[in-house]
């Protein structure tokens, strides 16, 4: 019965399908709340330089390590910098690293998945073997080894993180392409004389879209966690840039007397990643109602 429903759904006009999808997505209140949180977060990150109550880099040792108060809602850190401003600025860095790493993953991994899935053969076997090898490493070990080769810093951290993301996209896109390319409309396009490039990008690639969105919400969360971890170890974003990870690390030194220095940025990371995971699960359920 479910299959029948799905078959009919394929025949519905695009607009109706999108409307159904949105309704299914928002039926879950938790998903709706998480989406709102993410939208607010993206706005905060984009507008960060204009909405921070204070300059997140301005230190003032006269008011260091103040507890939360009216003027500084989350208190001040060990250099007397306003915590609210630093946490807001941290969202910009977390999302920047996350989006760039996932973007590289989509472009490079998507391209690799398209060509390996579409052409198959020796190229496919070799590239997939390499990808298996990369995926056999624990991701954190891979990331910090790459950072140790390239040197610490925000750019190298992004590159290292994207290296662990690329294989996931390559595999996903390849599996979709392999199943799509046998279908009639691809053979039809071939018969009409369409070039490989045209078929790959116009006829096959759009079928990967739904899965791509789901994977991207999940990997964005992982990338943000990875950046926090690297910066926590001192191998990612370098001071004085306010990364959530390095803020947690600094706060560790003042844990007994000023626990909020570590707790607040950690809560920020968790809020973002939880929201991303909930939205990712919600999207998957809405796209594929069978599950």
């Amino acid at each position, binding site marked *: 019965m479910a299959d029948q429903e799905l078959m009919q759904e394929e025949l519905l006009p695009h607009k109706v399908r999108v409307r159904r999808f949105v309704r299914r997505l928002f039926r879950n209140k938790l998903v709706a709340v998480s989406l709102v949180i993410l939208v607010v977060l993206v706005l905060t990150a984009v507008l960060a330089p204009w909405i921070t109550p204070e300059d997140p880099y301005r230190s003032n040792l006269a008011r260091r390590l103040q507890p939360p108060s009216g003027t500084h809602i989350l208190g001040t850190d060990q250099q007397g910098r306003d915590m609210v401003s630093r946490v807001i600025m941290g969202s910009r860095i977390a999302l920047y690293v996350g989006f760039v790493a996932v973007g590289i993953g989509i472009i490079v991994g998507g391209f690799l998945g398209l060509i390996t899935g579409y052409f198959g053969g020796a190229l496919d076997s070799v590239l997939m073997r390499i990808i298996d090898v990369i995926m056999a*490493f624990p991701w954190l070990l891979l990331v910090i*080894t790459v950072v*140790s080769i390239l040197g610490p810093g925000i750019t190298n951290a992004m590159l290292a993180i994207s290296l662990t993301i690329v294989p996931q996209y390559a595999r996903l896109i390849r599996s979709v392409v392999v199943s799509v390319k046998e279908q009639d409309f691809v053979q039809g396009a071939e018969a009409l004389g369409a070039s490989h490039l045209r078929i790959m990008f116009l006829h096959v690639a759009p079928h990967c879209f739904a899965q791509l969105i789901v994977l991207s919400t999940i990997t964005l969360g992982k990338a943000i966690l990875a950046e926090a*971890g690297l910066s926590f*170890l001192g191998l990612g974003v370098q001071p004085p840039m306010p990364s959530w990870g390095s803020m947690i690390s600094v706060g560790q030194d003042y844990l007994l007397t000023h626990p909020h220095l*570590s707790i607040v940025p*950690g809560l920020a990371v*968790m809020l973002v990643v939880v929201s991303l995971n909930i939205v990712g699960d919600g999207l998957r359920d809405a796209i594929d109602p069978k599950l």
Partner: protein
Amino acid sequence: MIVYAIRRINQAIPVLFAITLLAFLAFYFNPADPVVMLAGEQATPEMQQRIRQNLGLDQPVHVQYLMFVGRVLRGDLGTSYRSRQPVSSHMLPAFRATLLFISVSILFMVLIGLPAGILSATHPHSPLDNVVMAGVLLGLSAPIFWIVIILIYIFALRLGLFPSTGFYSWKSVILPALTMGMHYGAIIARVTRTSMLDVLNDDYIRTAHAKGLARRNVFYRHALKNAAIPIVTTIGLQIGSMLGGTILIETVFAWPGVGRMLVKAIVERDAPIVQGGVVLIASAVVVLNIVTDWLYAYLNPKVRLGSR
């Protein structure tokens, strides 16, 4: 089964190749000059030349790489820049500390993940299930190094029940291992729940219920046994990723293991130690994955007989 076991070992060869390559690159691209690091600034040119030759640094890159692989195979990981001691003499005690830490973590992971997953699956969509699934979501989403800091704050600094850093007694291992158990146990709980729910929908479970078996019997005798295959595999794979996670937790906790040594060596640019740490952790993961696959094939005849 034996054919499968051997084939699986062969599959690991390219991975081992990649590990040595990555470790070699970590050494090769290190900006510190190994000769200066080992001989000191005041060494005579002759002495520097001798060290350069001993290390094979006057050879072309590919020869250097092959020499490195040869040394690794003989168990020689070089000399630390900092301590001037053989890397293996640092590695052994660190590996022992990590092994202890990982073992207790695995125990916590299974003790937390398995019962949580079973409870969830046997009471689907109940408040209990919702609480467990919320816990799973939080466990997977919170940064693991942050969870351990929170636990240190509560149980070590506020309540004084456990030491806050280092490795002094059996109590030291509890907090870091509990953190690992919570994070990696979350995945076990999720897989256990899904796998049990899958099985509970099968016909033979309905038959077992119908012939009047006690619920407890149906769950543990019939369902859990058949749900075990994906659970066992996930546990194996999780132990592999745990070896990566130790890097963070050991650093927070100043645990004298391989992960902390690796991070310290990267910061201090002590390339031979970085190299040794990467080879050691990555090889351990490869071995674990092989054992997991063997176990999987042993439990699941489809794999061992079905694949060519």
